[in-house]
């Protein structure tokens, strides 16, 4: 259970003590590490998170994020989430280290892999989204980030684990819920303390209910609006159309392979 202990203990123990959902403005503050090389975007995401009652640390690069998390390039193992980061939200396209590379490093670290990572990107490209989700990202947000995007993440972070199997709003235009991608079995902090949900976690749900189905490959799911992708892509409003012309940018290098 050592890995579970690295997630904010205070929050987890309050989940176990009472079954009720702690208030979003409770003393158990969610600590989010935001990573974005754009100063404008950092300011906006910081405000979005703070207004959603999160404690925020904003850094401008993947390297700084890793240093903050106690995982330097020199260290191959180790790293220690002593600052109790509950969620990492990172831009995809950044110089030197992309959000994808950062995601991989976090998921490769035994100390940090439990921390949910959310990717933000201005490009709504399925291949990119797929790769991030396959690498273990919890969610993928298309920029510009809105309050509703952050609220959705925030709601998940403070939700009681017993709520996981409960049918959510069924809003099929929403982007995919965090827990749907949680492939890790019982070691997942979001599943372990709710034994009643364990049976539901192995039963694939035909409805768009976000049950913790660990075996279903996400890309194959067609019985729900995958991450609101279909509605998002069809919308094409606000300049959010697929703009695939960034091949030479650092964030595209990995997409050119294979």
């Amino acid at each position, binding site marked *: 259970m050592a890995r579970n202990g690295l997630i904010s203990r205070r929050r987890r123990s309050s989940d176990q003590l009472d079954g009720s959902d702690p208030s979003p403005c409770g003393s158990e503050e969610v600590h989010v590490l935001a990573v974005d090389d754009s100063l404008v975007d950092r300011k906006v995401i910081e405000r979005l998170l703070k207004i959603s009652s999160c404690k925020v640390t904003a850094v401008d690069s993947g390297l700084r994020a890793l240093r903050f998390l106690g995982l330097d390039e020199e260290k191959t193992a180790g790293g220690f989430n002593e600052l109790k980061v509950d969620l990492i939200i990172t831009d995809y396209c950044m110089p030197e280290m992309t959000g994808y590379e950062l995601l991989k490093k976090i998921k490769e670290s035994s100390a940090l892999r439990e921390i949910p990572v959310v990717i933000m990107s201005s490009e709504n490209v399925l291949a990119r989204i797929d790769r991030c989700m396959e690498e273990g990202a919890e969610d993928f947000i298309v*920029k510009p980030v809105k309050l509703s995007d952050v609220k959705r993440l925030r709601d998940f972070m403070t939700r009681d684990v017993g709520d996981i199997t409960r049918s959510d709003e069924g809003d099929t235009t929403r982007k995919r819920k965090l827990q749907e991608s949680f492939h890790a079995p019982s070691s997942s902090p979001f599943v372990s303390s709710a034994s009643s949900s364990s049976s539901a976690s192995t039963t694939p749900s035909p409805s768009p209910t976000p049950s913790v189905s660990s075996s279903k490959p996400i890309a194959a799911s067609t019985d729900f609006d995958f991450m609101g992708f279909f509605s998002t892509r069809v919308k094409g409003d606000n300049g959010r159309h697929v703009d695939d012309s960034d091949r030479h940018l650092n964030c595209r290098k990995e997409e050119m392979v294979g």
Partner: protein
Amino acid sequence: MDVAQLKRQLFEYTTLLFHEGFLDEQFTQLQQLQDENNPDFVVEVVSLFFDDSERLLNELAKALDQQNTDFKKVDAHVHQLKGSSSSIGAQRVQRVCITFRNYCQDKNVEGCLKCLQQVKHEYSLVKNKLETLFTLEKQILAAGGSAPM
């Protein structure tokens, strides 16, 4: 002008900016993030956008002035400008950036130069309009009105 008149003027002006596509719903999002504890949030973000954009426009002019244009560099700058304009809701600037990036991809110097002029133009327009908007807000506050947003 009394507060009520100023407020009406601000409302009409803002509506026009949205209608003409200078601003989009993302700007409204930013306004929603402003409250009595953070009364200058929008002005602060927009100021960052102004500084960032001016830097990028200078870099773009320099990059496009080179003998052998480094289109990757140009595109990287435009990508940043597109991102930040999107984040504050400066829709027309963002749209020119999209066209701009296409010319970069095609390695079309002339097209890029044209877009640079266009984006500079759109940027100065939206800057002007936002400054007018902020001035109106200040006038309302000075006249004893409450925070308009």
